């Protein structure tokens, strides 16, 4: 499996690395006052790898479509290899789900669109890639820009949600490996982020970023099944919701919010030019917050309580987990690379009961956390550096992890893209700007 992970990364890397081979089709001579092509090339790094791109181009079907050499007619350019290419060929962890009954841990990988399953005791002090026991990966999986993963130990299934590119939840079995179709799928609102399972109620709850909502479905819902209820509206204080935990014991939904809010309107190319959405309300920036909602709420219902304010230190909170034995909420605090633990019943501008943060922790851009009360551990999935780190459950301060799971060799850089769709060039600093 390790060889598979490394080989797959290597193949992508070969295809992405820049090149010096310039296609004759576009190498026409320039005017006298322009730098020559050789001069331009000489100023840049030279690499033969993109010959691979040219060879791949030759294997494309030429009979039709834009791959054909015949379209567009008489145009400049064509099939051209890049001079340089920046991309990360390795997985990046974001979501995490822990199954202490079957001793597995499952990670979602936003970068390569995959799900990686490890033994719960995996990882250690090695600088090498940690070998997953399963890797769900490939076009049949329908995995897009997935943010999270949820696990059902009883049915031995795991769930993930495409936050972008293919609005759906997909469900896989513990027996699934490789390029496999999901066991079932449920179509979801665009920008759905987290999924949390309520075993007793046989429901799942989903956060939706753009509509500032929580949608609830039957656990077994498939296809275009509609939500059984939705919590949404100004009174809910849901604002760019991310992490979600369905607390059946207390009949509550606990949500991490980034604080962005705007009035969503129909926006797609299939919606009309104008729609009546009532009074215009402008967008707003609010502080990050943890909101707690009644699990039976439906519609525009205020939260039961909110953790928010300077003392909380909340800064783009992503995934959360709840420890029902010790009555604590753990938050992956992406904005300051920390894990913050609050009293479950906390309310208002309260300090966390402990904070795990610092260089020794190796927490870098955390997106999810998982609490293991059975084995007294705390797991953190780092988006920032190709690792997940495991601590004693009550670790605090600048503590070292007890073991590390790596999806790339130590010190492998992370580009950090999530479906980047724009760029700008800074001519003063000779830099390229890419927003996510």
């Amino acid at each position, binding site marked *: 499996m390790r060889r598979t992970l490394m080989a797959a990364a290597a193949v992508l890397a070969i295809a992405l690395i820049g090149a010096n081979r310039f296609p004759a089709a576009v190498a026409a001579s320039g005017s006298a006052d322009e730098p020559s092509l050789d001069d*331009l090339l000489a100023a840049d790094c030279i690499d033969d790898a993109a010959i691979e791109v040219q060879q791949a181009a030759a294997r494309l079907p030429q009979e039709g479509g834009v791959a054909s050499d015949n379209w567009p007619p008489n145009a400049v350019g064509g099939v051209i290899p890049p001079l340089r290419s920046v991309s990360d060929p390795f997985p990046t962890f974001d979501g995490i789900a822990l199954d202490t009954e079957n001793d597995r841990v499952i990670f979602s990988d936003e970068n390569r669109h995959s799900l990686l399953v490890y033994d719960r005791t995996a990882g250690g002090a090695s600088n090498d890639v940690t070998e997953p026991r399963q890797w769900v990966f490939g076009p049949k999986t329908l995995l897009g820009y997935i943010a999270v993963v949820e696990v059902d130990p009883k049915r031995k299934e795991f769930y993930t949600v495409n936050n972008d590119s293919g609005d759906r939840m997909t469900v896989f079995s513990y027996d699934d490996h490789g390029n496999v179709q999901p066991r079932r799928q449920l179509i979801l609102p665009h920008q759905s982020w987290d999924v949390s399972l309520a075993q007793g109620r046989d429901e799942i709850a989903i956060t939706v970023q753009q509509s500032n909502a929580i949608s609830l479905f039957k656990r077994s819902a498939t296809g275009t099944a509609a939500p059984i209820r939705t919590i949404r509206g100004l009174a809910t204080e849901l604002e760019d919701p991310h992490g979600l935990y369905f607390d059946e014991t207390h009949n509550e939904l606990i949500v991490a919010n980034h604080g962005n809010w705007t009035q969503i309107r129909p926006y797609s190319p299939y919606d009309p030019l104008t729609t009546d959405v009532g009074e215009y309300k402008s967008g707003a920036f609010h502080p990050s917050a943890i909101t707690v909602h009644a699990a039976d709420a439906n519609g525009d219902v205020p939260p039961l309580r909110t953790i928010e304010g300077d003392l909380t230190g909340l800064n783009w909170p992503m995934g959360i987990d709840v420890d029902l034995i010790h009555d604590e909420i753990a938050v992956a605090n992406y904005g300051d690379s920390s894990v913050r633990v609050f009293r479950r019943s906390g309310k208002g501008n309260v300090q966390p009961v402990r904070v795990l943060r610092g260089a020794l922790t190796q927490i870098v851009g955390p997106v999810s956390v998982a609490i293991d009360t059975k084995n007294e551990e705390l797991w953190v999935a780092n988006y920032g550096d190709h690792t997940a780190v495991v601590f004693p459950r009550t670790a605090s301060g600048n503590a070292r992890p007890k073991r590390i799971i790596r999806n790339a060799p130590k010190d492998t850089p992370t580009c950090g893209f999530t479906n*980047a*769709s724009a760029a700008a*060039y800074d001519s003063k600093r000779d830099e390229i700007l890419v927003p996510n």
Partner: protein
Amino acid sequence: MPRISVFARSANGNVAPKRVIEGQATNLSRTMHGIAYDTAHDEIVIPVALSGAVLVFKADASGEVPPLRAIQGTRTRLVRPHTVAVDPVNNEILTADPSSRAIFVFDRMANGNVAAKRVISGAQTGLLDIVGLDVDPIRNVIVASSRKGNGDKVGLFVFDRLANGDVPPKQFIGGPNSKLAHFRQVAIDPATGNIFLAQQNTRMKQMEAYVLDKPREGFQAKQQDEDDDSDEGRLDQMGFIAVYAPDDNGDIPPRAIIKGPGIRMAGAAGVALNPKKKEIITVGGNGFQTFLLPEFFRPFKKIGTTAIPR
């Protein structure tokens, strides 16, 4: 993750950004489908879709820093701005908002709850799902990319720079011969006026299953069975970078194109230009590529005359 990553122009391979702008104080959110660098004032302009705002940062910003200025509030009429452009000559910031179905033009120094100077919107404009935008202060035009689901009016809309209200475009590039469908960012080469467009694939953007938080009436699941932004496995629908001359109009194919495996790695959602080095930067998915193409930075011959031989 919402962030602005900054890379050296020469970055190649798997490299980390030189610096990153991110964190609560930045007020950034996801869906930042546009970005502009203001060469005259050394600033970065960025839309924040999920907070209905446009932010301006110092160009050398790094880490968790607040924006210099933020355009947001009831007077702005912004809902979910997706893309931006900056006009350093006329001191204006432009943003396109697919939810408002409008292009807004603000004073460059606008800050807070301020009204737009001009708004291009309405049935005559043909604009709907506006996903890309740039301005050419030399030729005095605004170029927007916009999509309509029934295939009508899917393409590039060219307006007079001072257009205001419900006005028709002066030029429109689109139609079956253009193969324009699922595109995003627009960039204009200031020297030639050549218009660059990033197209993710040649299949129209798929219908979403929900309208707000409600399932879309009549939605069929089979329409959602493929990744909307990727062209993997669909070689006849591959995305590309298309280039047009400033006066192009009608149902025409591109004058220049980047296609093939190199560009499909990115999915080509974004495009930026480095005219000095004759480089085209394309971004999409989880990476970006740089192409060296001096021919694309020269004036194209008028249609009907002989093109540069391939």
